């Protein structure tokens, strides 16, 4: 099946943003290790790796806007809502576990990691369902 132009654009954008994330993360880590910034600059530097992660959500949003196949778009929105709900539920439960001292505090950026991981699970489930559709349809 040919890959649609919007999926090609999404892939290029995602790879670009993830490359930017890698460069920013390594750069900021090196910065703090060898020439620790101070004052406001330290805060700006510390949040720099979060910018490409925020851009991932923009890239996903652009895909939703550009996607021409309304059924696939509806499926994607459905999956995004389930994944977002699951992420919020799990992290809320984790917050209570932390609050009662039952688990160690976890860095908040793992929320995005969990969201991406659940997106991966959703994509696998969607792939299995589509292959079933193909065999039935």
């Amino acid at each position: 099946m040919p890959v649609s132009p919007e999926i090609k654009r999404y892939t290029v954008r995602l790879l670009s943003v993830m490359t930017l994330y890698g460069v920013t993360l390594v750069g900021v880590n090196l910065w703090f290790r060898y020439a620790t910034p101070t004052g406001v600059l330290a805060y700006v530097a510390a949040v720099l790796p979060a910018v490409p992660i925020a851009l991932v959500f923009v890239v996903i949003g652009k895909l939703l806007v550009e996607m021409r196949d309304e059924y696939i778009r509806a499926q994607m929105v459905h999956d995004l809502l389930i994944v977002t709900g699951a992420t919020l539920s799990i992290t809320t439960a984790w917050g209570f576990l932390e609050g009662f001292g039952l688990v160690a505090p976890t860095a908040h950026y793992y929320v995005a990691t969990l969201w991406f991981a659940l997106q991966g699970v959703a994509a696998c489930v969607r792939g299995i369902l589509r292959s079933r559709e193909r065999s039935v349809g």
Partner: protein
Amino acid sequence: MDNHLRALRAARGWSQQHLAERLEVSRQSVNAIETGRYDPSLPLAFRIAELFELAIEDVFVSPSRG
């Protein structure tokens, strides 16, 4: 929503893939519409009806009229 898409497609000897290409949608979309798992938007429903040179109600069954 019930529809006659599968019968109309079969009458023309078209595969789901062929119909999908004519409509510029995925084959999964055609399959989902045919099996009633997805109700197309009005613009897509009109595109389908126009492709078969039929009125929209000749392709899709009104839920209120059964």
